[in-house]
């Protein structure tokens, strides 16, 4: 059995007495489609940024690909193959679609410091960029200003940028937030079409989407891990039911039908 790709051991993030994330441990296998769910305020997003590197854990260790990355910066983690997306699309809105992906391509395959002209190197970057854009279905939008894209297209571009980083593992932060049902559907197809060797960890509010995509699920409530297992196991878990239904009445049904939840 190969070792898990991502391993969290006793990860905590405390702000004084506030325990945003408290002693969380779980593993994500190589090639897995893993989901992290939990009711509002459970600390999902905080844990997400701790894994991505935007915030540093106050205790515990995070191991990625056999390496302790607990203290590493966001950009170092990305270079190691652990790449995150953003909940609110934070693309380079004033730049073209092509530029957005080219920025990621250059970081990994080009020489980002180059400031002298080199038609050959430029063409290589363009070709790689167009490949990624084709994969996410945006090739015909390459020259468009990113700010002019629709919400769904921005999510597609987001995936294109992440794939341009040659990820071993992709972290998705509530990708379906703010999407129409049709957009969500297209987006799920996109995620399902990712190469099988790319591991996916998805933080999501929309449980329908989670149960369609994920093979394993971790449930967070009040900063603590309360359940871990297959979607079916988690669905039947008493603690999970209590955590979701225990919220203010009717605010958080366990299953949505529409799937368009604005975070």
């Amino acid at each position, binding site marked *: 059995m190969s070792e898990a790709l991502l391993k969290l051991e006793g990860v905590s993030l405390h702000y004084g007495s506030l325990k945003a994330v408290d002693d969380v441990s779980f593993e994500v296998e190589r090639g897995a489609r893993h989901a992290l769910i939990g009711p509002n305020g459970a600390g999902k997003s905080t844990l997400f940024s701790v894994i991505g590197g935007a915030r540093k854990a106050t205790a515990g260790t995070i191991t990625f690909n056999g390496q302790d990355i607990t203290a590493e910066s966001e950009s170092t983690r990305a270079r190691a193959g652990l790449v995150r997306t953003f909940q609110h699309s934070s693309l380079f*809105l004033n*730049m073209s679609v*092509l530029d957005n992906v080219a*920025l990621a391509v250059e970081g990994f395959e080009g020489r980002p410091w180059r400031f002298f002209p080199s038609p050959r190197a430029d063409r290589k970057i363009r070709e790689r960029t*167009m490949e990624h854009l084709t994969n996410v279905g945006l090739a*015909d939008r390459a*020259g468009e200003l990113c700010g002019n894209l629709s919400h769904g297209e921005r999510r597609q571009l987001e995936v294109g940028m*992440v794939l341009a980083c040659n990820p071993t593992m992709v972290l998705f932060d509530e990708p379906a937030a703010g999407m129409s049902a049709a957009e969500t559907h297209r987006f799920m197809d996109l995620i399902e079409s990712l190469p099988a060797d790319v591991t996916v960890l998805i933080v999501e509010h929309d449980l329908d989407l989670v149960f369609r995509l994920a093979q394993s699920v971790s449930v967070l409530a009040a900063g603590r891990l309360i359940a871990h297992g297959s979607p079916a196991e988690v669905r039947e878990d008493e603690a999970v039911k209590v955590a979701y239904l225990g919220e203010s009445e009717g605010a958080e049904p366990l299953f949505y039908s529409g799937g368009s939840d604005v975070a």
Partner: protein
Amino acid sequence: MSTINNEKTTVDPGTKTPAPRHAVRGGGRRRWLGLLLAVVALLVLASVPLWLSPYPVTMLSRILAFALLVVSVDLLTGYTGLPTLGQVAYFGAGAYAAGLTGIYLTTNAFVQMVVGTLVAAALALVTGIVAVRTKGFVFLMVTLAITELAHKQAEAMALTGGSNGLSGIPGISILPGGEPIALVGYLYWWVLFVFALGVALSVILVRSPMGRSMRGIRDGEERMRAIGRRTFMVKLVAFTFAGSLAGMAGTAWTAQARFVSPGDMAFALAAIALLSVVFGGAGTIWGPIVAAAIVILIRDEIGAIADGRGGMILGFVFVLAVFLLPRGIAGLSRRRAAAVGPTPIAGEGDEL
């Protein structure tokens, strides 16, 4: 000069996933048009000493040196998103270094330019390590501190002539061992050469992968880190390049004025250099250059006519520009105005 932002989205039709055709067409045509305009502008500027009297030619020399300083501010403020008041420090460093080289070493203009640029680059590298760790308002204040510290240092040192400034700088010569240039027209041509060289380097920079990274930091530094980019290095390289460019502008200043004073590295100059970028359209090259010319003309020429009220007139121009030119002078170009941000898109050309 007008295609500075025109990204290289022209895709070779031979690749297996070609970009949309309008990007190919629009990008290519605009680039050639821009190059043509730049060449015409350069030829017109070069012909100026042939048909203008020495006084306006001298003034134009000053404008060109200042405009190159403004371009260096633009590289940081407009392209990298770092509002700076610090470029005059490197401008001054280059100016003093060129002047001292002229006094103690050689009158050769090339040597002075290289020495001044390198001194400014070294200073920018060292101070940049500190400055680029900050951003926004704090960056603005740190660069203001750099300017004030450089200003005080120049006033305090005997080497730079203290608060009296550095005088007695001999005229520059072009050929090794050649005679110093006395004619205003030749001096102007040298300044124009330095200006054109600096602008050309800047255009190449902003169209390169490095320039793309700079704009990436401007639009989303956090995002840059998330895709694995080391933004500190990009910012440090940009800061050092901009500092070198300001130093280069400083050597051109010394070549035409043959005098450097601490006032050339003061807050007031830093402020109008920054405002020239905003006035001209941050994130374009030609806009701030035009703005720099207007600003110097108002401050020095119209100000002299209007009984020393240049500051007030300039103030009114700035206030009006805020409301009438939301995207600066560069926004007057229709194609550019169509874009949402300071960086226009490649495919816009097909609207024409």
